[in-house]
């Protein structure tokens, strides 16, 4: 076991032998790009002029009044393509270009990572194939159409749980077949080393901006956790300031950190949901981006060290927050981000506190699904 692939005891490279060399190559390429000023300046330019960064840090009047403290929203929902996912897709897309790979594959759950990857591929002129579970294709139809418009091929994954889990399996299997020519653009801080580090680094721009934008410093930072990319992105730059409380909000039906055990899935040792026989459990969440049985290894490390608290919110609480924020603040949050909002609304605060919620994405993608629920449809008609 090589310590440098681990966060405490979590992470590693639990993959078929065929992927070890490709991961070594990725590691080398990433390290050299990370140090390369030219790469970094290209990326900053794209993030600014293409993705729309920096995103605002908005002091929400409605939420502040409701909670009785200062609640800030980090507006990742305003990013190009509608979520934080674009930060990583552009970073890794540029990495693929710099290392001569023209063929990109990616998994997607909610479709946000798929859309971001398809956009990055269109921008850089790369071939793009997105793997997506049957269940997600149905409930995120809008994103499927967007990916197609952006020129990506969609491969429907019909096996397993037909959601993100199965999509990751299918993408890994495809990568194993041709690792020399394919770049696997993994969408969360999960998977074998170096992916969790790469994804974290590309998203840490979120936390860095908050640091500059917020008067003084935050007391609490809250973000939803599926695989954990938006949360690790906002947490990381504040890691050393132990007085800042980190809260990761999972969906109740896929709360690997609050309800799981340590296991190995998709290349990493981390907290996972599995049964007594070792089979990965099927999960459920109204928010497809949180509907995953595992979580990034660095979050397991945060949990073990008590650096972050991990809590969970159920579907109806998330839905309530989704509607509340839409109506009272004029911002339609993604169902994923609504989990973070819901937790903040539930918690008791005292007046002087500064709470930052990472509003990781916008809710346009969720509207069809929500309006397919009879009781909601009736209410708005």
């Amino acid at each position, binding site marked *: 076991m090589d310590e440098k692939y681990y966060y405490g005891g979590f992470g590693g490279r*639990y993959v078929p032998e065929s992927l070890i*060399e*490709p991961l070594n190559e990725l590691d080398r390429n990433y390290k050299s790009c990370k140090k390369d000023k030219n790469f970094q300046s290209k990326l900053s330019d794209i993030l600014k002029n293409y993705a729309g960064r920096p995103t605002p840090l908005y002091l929400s009047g409605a939420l502040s009044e409701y909670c009785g403290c200062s609640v800030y929203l980090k507006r990742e929902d305003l990013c190009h393509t509608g979520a934080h996912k674009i930060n990583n897709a552009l970073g890794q897309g540029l990495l693929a270009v710099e290392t001569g790979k023209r063929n990109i594959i990616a998994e997607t759950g909610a479709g946000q990572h798929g859309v971001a990857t398809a956009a990055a591929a269109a921008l850089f002129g790369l071939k793009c194939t997105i793997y997506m579970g049957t269940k997600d294709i149905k409930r995120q139809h809008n994103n499927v159409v967007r990916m197609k418009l952006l020129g990506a091929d969609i491969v429907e994954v019909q096996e397993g749980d037909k959601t993100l889990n199965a999509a990751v*399996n299918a993408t890994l*299997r495809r990568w194993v077949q041709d690792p020399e020519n394919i770049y696997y653009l993994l969408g969360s801080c999960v998977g074998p080393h170096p992916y969790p580090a790469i994804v974290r680094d590309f998203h840490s721009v979120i936390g860095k901006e908050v640091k500059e934008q917020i008067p003084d410093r935050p007391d609490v930072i809250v973000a939803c956790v599926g695989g954990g990319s938006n949360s690790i992105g906002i947490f990381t730059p504040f890691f050393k300031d132990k007085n800042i409380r980190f809260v990761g909000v999972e969906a109740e039906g896929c709360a690997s950190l609050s309800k799981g055990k340590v296991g190995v899935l998709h290349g990493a040792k981390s907290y996972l949901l*599995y049964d007594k*026989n*070792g*089979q*990965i459990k099927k999960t459920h969440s109204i928010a497809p981006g949180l509907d995953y049985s595992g979580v990034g290894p660095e979050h397991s490390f945060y949990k073990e060290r008590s650096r972050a608290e991990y809590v969970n919110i159920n579907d109806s609480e998330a839905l309530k927050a989704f509607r509340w924020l839409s109506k009272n603040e004029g911002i339609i949050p993604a169902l994923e981000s609504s989990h973070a909002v819901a937790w903040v609304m539930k918690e008791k605060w005292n007046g002087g506190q500064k709470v930052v919620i990472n509003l990781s994405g916008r809710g346009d993608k969720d509207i069809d699904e929500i309006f397919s629920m009879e009781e909601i449809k009736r209410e708005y008609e």
Partner: protein
Amino acid sequence: MSKLKDKVERLYREDKTGLSFFLTGGYPDMESFTKLVKYIDKNNLADFIEVGIPFSDPVADGPVIQESSQKAISAGTTYNNILMAVKSLKNKIDIPLVLMSYLNILLADELEKTLLTAADAGFSAAIIPDMPYGEHEKALEILKRVGMELILLISPGTPDKRVREIGKESSPFLYYVSSYGVTGNGKKFDKKTLESIRKVRNLSAKPVYCGFGITTGKDAQYIADIADGEIIGSAVIDLISENNIEQTFNDIYKFAINIGKSIRE
């Protein structure tokens, strides 16, 4: 010395190509699975059998093994009941058995405990496809303690230095993944495959068994030129009829005779 090691070394000394069949544990059902093991043993159709533990997320497997795994899991197959079935064959069969399991199955209980159960059931060695060299130390140490060996995989892209290192740890043979990709049919073998196997043989003192994608007698014959042994999985699973065990016996018998001829003549 383990039954498996004994067999592999004897075949190597006698310059005979070894042959292993893969079966998905509990597929098509537990009773038929144990009958298949006995049948292969009684008729000497293979030199050893690899028993796969079905896993919900088998990233190294192609559609055939995935489907058999999914069916076995849906029918309630678990690690423990496969091991119990295998254990019940202990003094009734002679053929060595290799455990093939993804790591999470083995971690569901203490690793010490799950591997000890495997040794106790009669397994000689383990293959853990998502635990490559570098992540293997702890499991290897436990396997040694319980009297089992660890078979590590090598892929066409594994650099020479790493092949040498893996060669030292893997026993009684090295498992060469014949081409990039997952298990399953329809791979094309060419001179590059043979050269690659030859290279691995030169870099290690251990026998090299080749697997992933060997489907026909022609494939088997081609690979047998260089490899010390062959492992056939998906092509065997493909022959299993879900409701007619006699048919399965017939088909596997014919298949094994054909492969046997191809590799030993």
